[in-house]
């Protein structure tokens, strides 16, 4: 099956953190020259396995071999010397340094007294960038912070390769496309494929099944710390892969999971229709236009959006599709007044206000270091004096209501999985009882089952009479969840059409044209 010789193998890897057993005897092989996807829900053990591979964690039992020899890195530097490098999910460039400085960070060529050899550094950076981006695509002197997210991603890969030196053999990519639009993601995978062809073994950790089917030669599913299945993703039906990932939970979330991952196109229509029907009956206002909550007229921000006009009514979910850089987040921020508007009007008839669910959970959505109860209770309103016991009880109520998987309201939000963090964010908005919710990429970086739950939560909120604006780069998610969808292109928002008139291809065509 594998295209090349076996480069890397895990044998009987076991690892636990205190009482929690994370890996229970993982057996895995990776061949040279292949893109191998590692799949699994949050908490399945993917990250831990990668951390062991990188030498950040150490296995309690089991061995690894690299190129036929035993491999036991003491730390990331050790792994790097052996030719194992990783591009983590979060962006880790130094925004103030330029591209060359970022690529050679930690491996700066230097002479006596540590004086830099600038031309040599430039050559190293140029070589590495040529591998991932082709020559001349990314200016070497640009500050990393000034590059687009897609280009930053390429610089990160170039850096990983440069740091692996000539001996780079294994490249781990953790959710490389999470923050990229479709065309950028495709371009990235083209490069990844070229790297694999040059003999590198590439481990792709991701939640995007579509990416796996399009770009990986093999996949392996981890669940509960064990390998649950593997094969050629082009030959195995997506339902089977989802089944391997979810196990017994499958039955309850099957419908949503299908809709959410969108690999099985036929599931969507049914779910969508069912939902719309429910929405209408729940509202009980058939024939009469529901109350207008938010009116945005010719809104123009500093740079983006350039022109946005739409209406949002009670009980409706309005989807906004658009590529990365089209100004989706900026649009939401401008509506809310977080970014200044240059012209246009925002007329809100929402007595209880407008809430924003940020796409940047760790950065501005949540206080990661505080407890769940504290995060949910955070509000500009409320009593002057706060009782910790009431906050605690309130937190417990919301945890039960939204089925947050946690040890209790006193757990730090930073310790939760992505999906559960998202539920805490939603709990805060629901508690505030906003009439209008602006929801930005609610399913980014969370697993299939949580995705389905989060989307179902949004639908339920709409049924209860909230107006929701949903921004997502997952087009299938929009088609399945929204009542109407508008496409944002270069900062200009198109007309909102009923979701039934859209499908993924149409949306993509409209957004990318």
């Amino acid at each position, binding site marked *: 099956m594998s295209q090349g010789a076996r480069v890397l193998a895990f044998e009987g890897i076991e690892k636990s953190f205190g009482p929690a057993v994370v890996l229970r005897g993982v057996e895995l092989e990776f061949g040279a020259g292949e893109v191998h996807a590692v799949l699994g829900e949050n908490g399945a053990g993917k990250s831990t396995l990668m951390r062991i591979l990188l030498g950040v964690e150490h296995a309690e039992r089991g061995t690894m071999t690299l190129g036929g020899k035993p491999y036991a890195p003491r730390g*990331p530097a050790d792994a*790097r010397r052996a030719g194992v490098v990783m591009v983590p999910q979060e962006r*880790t460039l130094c925004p*103030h340094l330029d591209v060359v400085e970022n690529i050679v*960070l*930690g491996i*700066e060529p230097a002479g006596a007294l540590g*004086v*830099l050899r600038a031309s040599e550094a430039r050559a190293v950076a140029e070589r590495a960038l040529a591998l991932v981006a082709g020559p001349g695509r990314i200016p070497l002197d640009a500050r990393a912070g000034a590059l687009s997210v897609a280009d930053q991603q390429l610089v990160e890969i170039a850096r990983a390769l440069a740091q692996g030196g000539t001996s780079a053999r294994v490249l781990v990519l953790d959710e490389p496309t999470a923050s990229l639009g479709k065309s950028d993601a495709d371009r990235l995978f083209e490069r990844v494929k070229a790297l694999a062809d040059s003999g590198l073994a590439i481990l792709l950790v991701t939640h995007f099944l579509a990416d796996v089917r399009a770009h990986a030669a093999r996949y392996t599913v981890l669940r509960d710390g064990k390998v649950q299945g593997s094969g050629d993703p082009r030959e195995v039906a997506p339902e089977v892969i989802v089944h391997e990932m979810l196990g017994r939970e499958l039955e309850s979330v099957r419908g949503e999971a299908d809709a959410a991952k969108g690999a099985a196109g036929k599931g969507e229509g049914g779910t969508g229709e069912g939902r719309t029907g429910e929405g209408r009956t729940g509202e009980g206002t058939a024939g009469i236009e529901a109350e207008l909550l938010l009116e945005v007229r010719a809104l123009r921000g500093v740079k983006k959006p350039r022109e946005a006009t739409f209406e949002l009514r009670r009980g409706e979910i309005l989807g906004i599709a658009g590529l990365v850089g089209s100004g989706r987040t900026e649009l939401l921020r401008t509506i809310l007044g977080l970014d200044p508007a240059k012209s246009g009007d925002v007329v809100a008839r929402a007595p209880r206000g407008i809430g924003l669910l940020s796409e940047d959970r760790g950065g501005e959505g949540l206080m990661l270091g505080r407890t769940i109860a504290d995060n949910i209770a955070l509000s500009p309103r409320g009593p002057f004096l706060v009782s910790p016991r009431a906050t605690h009880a309130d937190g417990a109520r919301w945890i039960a209501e939204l089925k947050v998987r946690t040890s209790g309201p006193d757990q730090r939000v930073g310790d939760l999985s992505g999906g559960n963090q998202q539920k805490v964010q939603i709990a805060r908005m629901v508690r505030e009882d906003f009439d209008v919710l602006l929801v930005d990429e609610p399913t980014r970086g969370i697993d299939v089952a949580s995705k389905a739950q989060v989307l179902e939560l949004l639908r339920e909120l709409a049924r209860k009479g909230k107006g929701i604006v949903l921004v997502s780069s997952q087009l299938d998610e929009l088609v399945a969840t929204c009542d109407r969808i508008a496409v944002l292109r270069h900062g200009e928002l198109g007309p909102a059409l009923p979701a039934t008139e859209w499908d993924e291809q149409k949306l993509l065509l409209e957004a990318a044209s």
Partner: protein
Amino acid sequence: MSALASLRAMRRPAWLGPFVALLVVYVIFAIITPEHSFLRSQIFLTMARQSVVLGICALGMTLIIVTGGIDLSTGSLVALTTVVLAKMLKDGSSPVVAVACAVGVATAVGAFVGVCVGRFRLMPFVVTLGTMAVLRGSAIGLASEQKIDCDPHGLDHVLEASLSSPGIWIALGLATVVSLVLGYTRFGRHVFAVGSNEAAARLCGIDSGRVKILVYALSSLLVGIAGIMEFSTLTVGDPTDSVGLELDVIAAVVIGGAPLAGGEGSILGSVFGALLIIVIRTGAVHMGMPSWVQYIVTGVIIFVAVAVDSARRRRTRS
């Protein structure tokens, strides 16, 4: 105004702002002083001499602020250095040994702060707030609560308002060296990397803790040298000297274009910042303005510097 706008459009060097501010303030004083006495060479040399202590301290503070840190113990450390130096001279040590010991003590203090910040991950603000008090107390205790008189053994000639004074040239030399280190060495890149994104730096195999230890030790070494210069002016060991100096030093670095968030900063900018503060102070004294005016003018300059810098940043981002 349009000239200013086109100037902004270019990616201008960070030190340009403080340099322009320095020129403007100097010219204003030169115009308003009676008989243009502010242009005389003697006052120029006086200001150069006064800038030495502040300037040398600002070199180290720049490194610290670029890493995203801060040091509040500068003033106390200068005082302690003068006391150690005076006490050793009084006890009969040779000036070379006394200077070496005084600077060594300062460097050791910096290394200690660096270990607290870099290895034990303590907040620099809190650590140096502590050392500020401990060092001041140590200096006063060591000096038995009074100034230490001693034979300066020629050290009083190190820093004078004259072109032949080595102090001014030492300061210029140090500024050049630190500037080159920051700009053209591997260590310099790592200093910026740690301040810009410490997680990324660590990911690339950089021992960010080690970088911080070196930065605090180096900065305190420079403060020690500044202490020798201060002694040269005082000719006594004064444990109550330089109270609040650290705030002037931080102001100089901030005026020089280094945001307290780290990742940016330049030695040249900080040097201009220090000169600006001294020019305002000297000019005000020269004009016979009361001291409260200097404080207010310096404060306003800090506001303006930060506002201009923030406006520039917003412009380049959009």
